[in-house]
């Protein structure tokens, strides 16, 4: 296994260095940036699978001259699972990049982009492998910085620079909280090794545990994009080149999920008061619902997908929260189920979200815009991209028998088991969370009916869309790979569940593989088959069989009468793209029903003809959704910081003598404390 690790590290390092060393030769740059990444991610896939199946965690370390820092890594099932997730998405993105980077030629430095891309993948892999707090923080910071550079790779645009700055500040605020979390553990154990975090010499007092819980939640929550710390996400993720967006939205935010599980279930020993789980559950429900609601109002395809990441992180947290609550009450099997559901959704989301972002990248490539209102009719012009995007869409909206459905079903199931909890309040709250998840699911359905329907169906809405061409072959392969992964994860839960069970079992102390896999692995069951069961392969067969039955019925009753093509009925007028329903129009009823959340401002200016008040010469319609969190949460904080900074400017006089006085006074004060 360590050999594979060397291949992985070597591949990424080669991918970082080679593009920068070669002379200016675009094609060579693309090859040197992508081929090592493909090799490294392939090694990562194998490494992840081996790590998931091996019985003992593999460790390795290199000492360093810096005190407290060792470059220690540990491949346990949890780490292996995330390496697998990162590598699968990374592999698809690397293949996709071969085609995508050609399109990028001239606008950004390809060698730099390729080098950063490899570095970003490497840092994410090391984050989940790190076995030392100091090392973890280093690679975490590296991951944040490299992703920042990738976000601003089109830095000539002002919006991109703003997104980058916003992201940089938010991620560093988060990092501060992570450092504080680790310092709490360090204080108890005297070392940054994760093993001392797990088994400190004197156990942490309850109050410190609570502080660690909250610090980790804020610190990692910022990266995960939980509401209300999500505001940077819809700016930063879309600003990056699409294959990077795919990695940021599909994988990078999952490193935070990894860290949360690591801290709560591993370091804190899986012992929590009930309200910890409840807090996670509430954050999950709120993130899921608000994520999808804001996604509905987005007409920039990539921003829409970014908001859906907030939603899906919420769904993952619902599973983790339910698991934590069950853990509190000693219901270990159910705790394992909740956690398993969350992890299943994690890899599913990585697959379909990366796929959708790659699809969005292909649309951007073909039409040069991210605005959905300028798409339309693309399924006929880009059949491959369209089919892949459709698979991603049905997966993300959890239609059976796709992978999204399987994991969401497991989340629902773990919420339904709440009647075993001996607490009436929680008994009522978990079903409410299930109801919110149902609402989220239905809104996601509406959102992707909009995203796919407006982008790919009907008539092209702009010249760009009319002249769109299918994406180049490497881009198609990248998308097809992820589409295959989505389908496989949906139809093969009997393979996925035992692997996930190995991840979860060390944290809950029970293996639920035999319980969840019923009927020789053909069905999933929670508790037992009598309570609930689901068989994705049988459902797939059934749907296929019944569709054939439909064809048979058509053949039997009327035969396949040759169909006639004719223009759409437009009340006697020839149909033009301007008559089509727009994305804005599509979500108007939802905007109106949930206006208390959106607080929309609508401006309609009409200029009438002089002769009559009944005929408008021109109309101007504007509508905005109130950015509630920015206005009421972030703006006051920013204003406060700015005001404070203004006051502090007084002490910056620019005089050297004054600064020397400051240093002298500080020294005196410190010496006083030392005595």
């Amino acid at each position, binding site marked *: 296994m360590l050999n594979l690790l060397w291949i992985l590290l070597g591949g990424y390092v080669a991918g970082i260095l080679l593009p920068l060393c070669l002379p200016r030769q675009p094609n060579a740059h693309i090859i040197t940036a992508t081929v090592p990444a493909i090799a490294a991610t392939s090694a990562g896939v194998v490494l992840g699978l081996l790590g998931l199946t091996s019985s003992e965690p593999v460790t390795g370390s290199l000492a360093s001259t810096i005190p407290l820092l060792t470059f220690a890594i540990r491949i346990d099932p949890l780490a292996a699972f995330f390496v697998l997730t990162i590598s699968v998405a990374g592999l698809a993105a690397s293949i996709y990049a071969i085609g995508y980077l050609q399109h990028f030629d001239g606008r950004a430095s390809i060698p730099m982009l390729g080098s950063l891309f490899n570095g970003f993948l490497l840092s994410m892999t090391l984050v989940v492998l790190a076995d030392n707090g100091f090392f973890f923080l280093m690679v975490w910071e590296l991951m944040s910085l490299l992703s920042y550079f990738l976000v601003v790779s089109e830095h000539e645009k002002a919006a991109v620079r703003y997104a980058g700055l916003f992201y940089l500040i938010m991620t560093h605020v988060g990092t501060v909280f992570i450092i504080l979390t680790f310092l709490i553990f360090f204080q108890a154990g005297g070392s940054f090794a994760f093993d001392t975090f797990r088994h400190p010499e004197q156990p942490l007092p309850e109050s410190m545990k609570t502080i660690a819980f909250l610090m980790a939640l804020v610190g990692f929550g910022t990266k995960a994009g939980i509401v209300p710390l999500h505001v940077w996400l819809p700016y930063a993720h879309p600003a990056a080149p699409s294959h990077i967006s795919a990695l940021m939205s599909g994988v990078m935010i999952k490193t935070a999920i990894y860290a949360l599980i690591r801290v709560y279930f591993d370091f804190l020993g899986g012992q929590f008061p009930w309200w910890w789980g409840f807090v996670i559950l509430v954050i999950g429900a709120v993130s899921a619902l608000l994520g999808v609601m804001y996604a509905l109002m987005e007409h920039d395809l990539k921003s829409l997908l970014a908001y859906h990441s907030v939603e899906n992180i919420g769904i993952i947290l619902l599973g983790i929260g339910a698991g934590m609550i069950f853990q509190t009450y000693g219901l270990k099997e159910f705790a394992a189920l909740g956690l398993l559901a969350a992890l299943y959704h994690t890899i599913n989301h990585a697959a379909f979200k990366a796929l959708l972002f790659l699809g969005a990248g292909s649309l951007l490539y073909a039409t040069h815009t991210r605005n959905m209102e300028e798409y339309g009719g693309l399924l006929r012009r880009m059949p491959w991209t369209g089919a892949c995007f459709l698979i991603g869409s049905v997966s993300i909206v959890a*239609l059976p028998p796709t992978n999204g459905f399987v994991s969401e079903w497991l989340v629902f199931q773990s919420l339904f088991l709440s009647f075993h909890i001996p607490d009436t309040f929680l008994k009522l709250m978990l079903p409410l969370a*299930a109801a919110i998840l149902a609402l989220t699911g239905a809104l996601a*359905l509406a959102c992707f009916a909009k995203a796919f329907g407006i982008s790919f169906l009907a*008539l092209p809405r702009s010249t760009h869309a009319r002249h769109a061409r299918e994406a180049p072959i490497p881009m198609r392969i990248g998308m097809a790979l992820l589409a295959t992964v989505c389908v496989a994860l949906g139809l093969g839960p009997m393979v996925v569940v035992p692997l996930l069970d190995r991840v979860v079992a060390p944290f809950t102390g029970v293996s639920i593989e035999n319980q969840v896999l019923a009927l020789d692995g053909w069905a999933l069951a929670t508790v037992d088959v*009598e309570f609930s069961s689901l068989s994705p392969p049988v459902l797939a067969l059934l749907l296929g069989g019944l569709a054939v039955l439909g064809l048979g019925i058509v053949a039997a009753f009327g035969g396949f009468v040759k169909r006639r093509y004719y223009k759409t009925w437009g009340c006697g007028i020839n149909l033009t793209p301007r008559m089509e329903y727009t994305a804005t129009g599509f979500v108007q009823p939802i905007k109106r029903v949930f206006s208390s959340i959106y607080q929309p401002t609508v401006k309609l200016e009409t200029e009438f003809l002089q002769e009559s008040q009944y005929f408008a010469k021109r109309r101007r319609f504007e509508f905005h959704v109130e950015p509630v969190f920015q206005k009421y949460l972030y703006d006051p904080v920013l204003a406060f910081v700015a005001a404070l900074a203004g006051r502090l400017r007084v002490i910056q006089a620019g005089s050297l003598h004054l600064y020397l006085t400051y240093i002298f006074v500080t020294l005196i004060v410190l010496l006083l404390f030392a005595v």
Partner: protein
Amino acid sequence: MLDAFLLIVMQTVVLLATAPLMVGLIRKVKARLQCRRGASVVQPYADLIKLFRKQPVVSSTTSWIFTATPYILFASTLAAGLLVPVFISRTPLSFAGNIIALVYLLAVGTFFLMLAGLDAGSAFGGMGSSREAIVASLTEPAMMLSIFAIALTAGSTNLSTIVHKTALLEGIMTDPSPHLMAFAALVIVAIAETGRVPVDNPATHLELTMIHEAMILEYSGRYLALVEWAAGLKLLVFLTLIANVFAPWGIATSMESAALGVGLAAYLVKVSGLAVLIGILESMFAKLRLFRVTDLLGAAFILALLGLVFFYVLRG
């Protein structure tokens, strides 16, 4: 194995054969209540056969989504029907998916119909899809909570187990109030999901009031036949669900042919009774404005939630 296969085939045939009858029955009841004689209850069968034989006209702006949707809709709705116990409580395919899978299978059809509505490019289809989106979104939480209340009283989310236990009265109905509230909520949900008055009007072709009819406006010939049949099936699935979950009287609990016969007869009587009830309800109410539907579905949500609260309070 053979028995199970035969049962699946039987259930498919019963569902397919009964669905148009329910549509005809509701139309007949409405006609009688309006003092009209109305068309025969078997008229929908004749309509279907006519449509299958007609030449379909397909809009030239559409993609393959438009022609594939009727088959996907038909298959997913029928698959949902096969998960519900119809005349025997232990329906063979029940293991393939529980009540949540049923809800999401029906969502497959909704999703593709919304896409098909957008595909033709006319404003009618888009309008229908957009309205369907909001109705479906508001229905879902109420449906999930009422399902939860039912699952609690039966101690299972598997439809077969729920029906089987209720039929044998195992530990159920000690306090009927949660059940009744979930029942009321689910009836409202069924009305909204199947596009009946007061949420939608299946008889309308006025653009101000259409939801489902607007989405399928461009369909004709065999495609329309499949879509109409699937709409009837969806109605039947909800009727079956309500009939057998809340009143599984007469349903066969064993494989004997006599029991199966009784089960089938009881099933037809029950769903026909519910269809008559829906016909009466449709005649009693006027269609609501789209933005008033929120209140109705909100009421369904509250009812289901109350059912849940009652369950926990009564059980202590």
